[in-house]
């Protein structure tokens, strides 16, 4: 496929790997690089990128997977909405298996709730037209990549005067999460592989604070293996040359100022919440999107009574530490035993973009544990 196959070329990947090896030998320390986006985490595991990086480069898998940072309480709120027999609840498939405090949306559907998986939020409008006597509520989740699509959907509902559609907004913003990570004293990072598709919408300019205030390099990256290799190579070059800049590897899709139409739609429909809860990271100021008052008729939180529950995470679950990169998935007490993709306790095991699910699916634990052992000079248990 055009724009995919060319970026999976093994000869070019091997050359980049050798270049990365050369640069790593010029760096006299153990480097921690965070890939923020869950899409990158998935690619890194799928293509075995982490395994063939030099021993002194460690990838930290960040919180950029909207499913992984969805707090239990919001899932419980969604399930409470589904119990209303007048509501048809629509959602992306990603959210179906996320555990709430008692059940998931998938279990609620099995118990009779009318929950429908859609490919696009626009499909919810079609369902609304076909079911004029029902209320259709779309479970909006995702970062700035996905938020414009729900904003356009609300604008279309307004234009077509579709009154039986509303959005339960759980959209979150990348920049405040990065700020929270950078302010976390537990976390030592040497650089970031930045999210490609979020940046396609917001541009590269919003990341300038990372280089200017926190003096960390960041390279916005595409998702194919060559993209990720090239981004790591660009990051190492910055570190070797003692630079801290925002660089854009994914310039075939990302422009400095982003996509003006997508930003305009988001700004027209959404306002910033004062704070929003993230699983594992707690409440982060100004990190979520709510619907503006002008579009309150499309806001499920205005239209319906939402319990607005705060539910603590399972005691055994260490997703929070994993999302912050403080723990490796295999160091979690329940990894691969009580917590598996079939019976997830924590969200990092639910989504294919979660670090735990990636380690579980693609294995390679022995290789990764050996790398960690070399670094720490202490044995790493595999159990």
């Amino acid at each position, binding site marked *: 496929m055009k724009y995919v196959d060319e970026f999976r070329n093994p000869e*070019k990947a091997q050359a980049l790997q050798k270049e990365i090896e050369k640069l790593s030998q010029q760096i006299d320390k153990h480097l921690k690089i965070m890939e923020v986006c869950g899409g990158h985490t998935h690619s890194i595991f799928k293509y075995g990128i982490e395994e063939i990086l030099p021993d002194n480069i460690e990838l930290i898998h960040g919180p950029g997977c909207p499913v992984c940072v969805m707090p239990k309480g919001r899932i419980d709120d969604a399930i409470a909405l589904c119990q209303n027999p007048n509501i048809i609840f629509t959602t992306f498939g990603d959210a179906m298996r996320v555990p709430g405090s008692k059940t998931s949306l998938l279990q609620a559907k099995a118990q009779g709730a009318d929950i429908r998986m859609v490919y696009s939020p626009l499909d919810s409008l079609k369902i609304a037209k076909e079911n004029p006597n029902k209320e259709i509520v779309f479970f909006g989740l995702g970062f700035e990549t996905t938020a414009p699509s729900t904003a356009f959907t609300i604008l*279309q509902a307004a234009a077509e005067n579709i009154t039986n559609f509303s959005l339960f907004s759980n959209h979150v913003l990348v920049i405040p999460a990065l700020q929270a990570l950078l302010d976390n004293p537990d976390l030592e990072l040497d650089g970031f592989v930045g999210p490609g598709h979020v940046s396609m919408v917001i541009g590269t300019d919003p990341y300038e604070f990372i280089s200017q205030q926190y003096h960390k390099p960041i390279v916005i990256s595409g998702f194919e293996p060559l993209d990720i290799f090239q981004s790591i190579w660009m990051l190492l070059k910055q570190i070797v040359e003692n630079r801290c800049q925002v660089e854009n590897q994914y310039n075939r*899709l990302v422009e400095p100022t982003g996509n003006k139409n997508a930003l305009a739609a988001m700004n027209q429909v959404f306002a910033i919440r004062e704070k929003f809860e993230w699983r594992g990271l707690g409440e982060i100021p100004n990190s979520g999107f709510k619907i503006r008052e002008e579009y309150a008729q499309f806001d499920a939180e205005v239209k319906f009574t939402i319990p607005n529950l705060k539910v603590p995470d399972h005691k055994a679950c260490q997703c929070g530490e994993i999302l912050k990169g403080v723990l490796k998935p295999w160091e979690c007490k329940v990894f691969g035993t009580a917590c598996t993709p079939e019976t997830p306790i924590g969200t990092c095991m639910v989504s294919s973009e979660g670090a735990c699910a990636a380690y579980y699916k693609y294995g390679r634990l022995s290789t990764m544990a050996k790398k960690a052992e070399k670094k720490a000079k202490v044995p790493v248990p595999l159990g």
Partner: protein
Amino acid sequence: MCLGIPGQIVEITNPEHKLAMVNVGGVKRQINIACIVDEQHPPEKCIGDWVLVHVGFAMNRINEQEAAETLQLLQEIAQAYT
């Protein structure tokens, strides 16, 4: 979650609602092109454009020249090892 897949716009199906048919690896699907339409790019001028498709929307146009330059740079690096 933020997955995107390249596709080529092959037909404008509804200019008013900014809907177009996109070909993704041989599979055709209707998508919304509101993110990539402006005065310089009215819907009818989008036919043939390569776009990144995400949740039923064309989120951005793929810049052919930038892609070629990236691949050229990687080719130059690879040549040093052949």
